[in-house]
């Protein structure tokens, strides 16, 4: 069998498998790279997307996007009063927690789908954590506070307004990226909803990188720590020397 025939056979099988009413999702992410340089104070990633449908849709679609940053092991600690002072006493370790977690949608989540569907699809700050392996305990104060602190830091966010539809098929989503995010790969899971169910989803990504002086400083501090330390020391001594010369009174 030649390759052309094989390809044709695959397409034929695919066509058979595809349901009659099929909808697809195409997206593009810009920029694909967020560059952290000396004047970096946060950025925005914009997603443009279109719903592919055989005919013009009669119903309205909803979109929810989950953006997650590099995973970390996080320790949540609780302070207790011991001998009159407040110190960290008990703690719990959470593994596989996204360092950044942003959830945006075209409408409030509870209007898009039922709580059960959202949980199964891993949509919502808590649902993402549960999908990452965190035990789904509703009353766990460590988990609640972990989420609250991250929300306050701006590293976790949940907005029902981030996705706007231009027409029935075309939408635009905006993800604000704060200045305190770590470098690394960020994953975007975009899900298309209709009538409270997921009908299509895509996976895309962007990266946060340090460049120039920032990249140099981080790499030098990690890989050439002795030279880095000596350089900082020399810089300090030099600054002190310049100041004592510049302000010398004769």
């Amino acid at each position, binding site marked *: 069998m030649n390759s052309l025939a094989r390809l044709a056979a695959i397409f034929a099988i695919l066509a058979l498998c595809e349901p009659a009413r099929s909808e697809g999702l195409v997206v593009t992410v810009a920029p694909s790279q967020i560059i*952290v*340089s*000396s*004047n*970096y*104070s946060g950025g925005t990633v914009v997603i443009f997307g279109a719903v592919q449908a055989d005919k013009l849709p009669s119903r309205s679609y909803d979109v929810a996007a989950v953006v997650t940053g*590099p*995973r*970390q*092991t*996080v*320790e*949540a*600690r*609780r*302070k*207790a*009063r011991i001998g009159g*002072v*407040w*110190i*960290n006493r008990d703690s719990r370790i959470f*593994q*596989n927690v996204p*360092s950044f977690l942003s959830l945006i949608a075209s409408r409030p989540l509870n209007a898009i789908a039922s709580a059960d569907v959202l949980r199964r699809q891993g949509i919502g700050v808590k649902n993402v954590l549960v999908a990452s392996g965190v035990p789904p305990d509703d009353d766990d*104060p*460590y988990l609640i506070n972990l989420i*609250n*602190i*991250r929300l306050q830091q701006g590293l976790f966010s949940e907005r029902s307004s981030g996705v706007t539809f231009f027409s029935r098929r075309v939408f635009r989503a905006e993800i604000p990226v704060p*200045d*305190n995010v*770590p470098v*690394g790969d960020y994953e975007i899971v975009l899900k298309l909803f209709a009538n409270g169910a997921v009908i299509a989803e895509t996976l895309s990504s962007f990266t946060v990188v340090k460049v120039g*002086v*920032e990249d140099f*400083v*981080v790499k*030098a*501090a*990690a890989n050439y*720590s*002795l030279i*880095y*330390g*000596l*350089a*900082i*020391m020399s*810089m*300090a*001594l030099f*600054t*002190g*020397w*310049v*100041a*004592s010369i*510049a302000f*010398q009174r004769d």
Partner: protein
Amino acid sequence: MSSEDDRWTLLKNACERNYPLQLYLPIADLSVNIFLLLAMGLAVGFVSGMFGVGGGFLMTPFLIFIGISPGVVVASVASHITASSFSGALSYWRRRAVDIQMALILLSGGLLGTLSGVWIFTKLRALGHLDLLIGFSYLIMLTTVGGLMLIESVRAIVRERQQKPNLLRRPGAHTWMHGLPVKMRFKRSTIYVSVIPVWGIGYIIGVVGAVMGIGGGFLLVPMLIYFLRMPTATVIGTAAVLTTATMALATVMHALTNHLVDAVLVLVLMVGGVIGAQFGARSAHKMPAERLRFLLGLLILAVGFRFGYGLISRPANLYSIRALGADI
């Protein structure tokens, strides 16, 4: 705590609105308003120049308040103090106000102390009780030193009002430390004292400096005056030499062990700090020594009480989180 947070937020917002120039700190992983940092450097530098101390005991809490993690702060402030104390040391050296013999013996203790201090810092950071240790050391040292200075300077001021001679250093007045063996004559300071307490003081300053992220000048100056009866003329210059050396070593050690020294943060703080220090040193010439010590004592005590309050008052949120490391 919350009202203080509000004030900081107001200050931060005012800076960001009027001078919207954010500077990204690559190791601290966040961006800070450059004018806020420069202003802090200037203010702390002014105080350090005025009183002949490194100013780390003010800079460290300032930087922690604006949201930089304590580890990065302690490691970075060490190099900031290196710059400001080296600038001071050079000025005193030109005025022949440095007892180099004394400085070298203090230094031999100080360098060993710094190594122990960085080791303790690394161990405690792993255990997760760094905040507590820093808080406690600040509380104890600041309130003790601040209180003693305040009492001593009030006495001196009262004595001066009563037209009595200043009794701070009487020739021949000895403490028990003067009875120890291995005595040595320090010509520049005109004292004859055992090297054991000198070495010990150097060691303590080294440990304290590395663990708390301070130069220890505010601790060293009174120790040299009250324990060794060193004359005020050579104390500050000698202390500046010791602080320069221990903090220079602390910088390298922190860079080697914790990788937390932020070059960008250091640079901005240094520039503000050395300029502020020169203006501070000039204003200090216009004020009598007792009054300077009184003001410094008051300042130290105030910072100490603030730390004490932070330890005993119920925190706004009992919970805190920290990232232990990246998952692959």
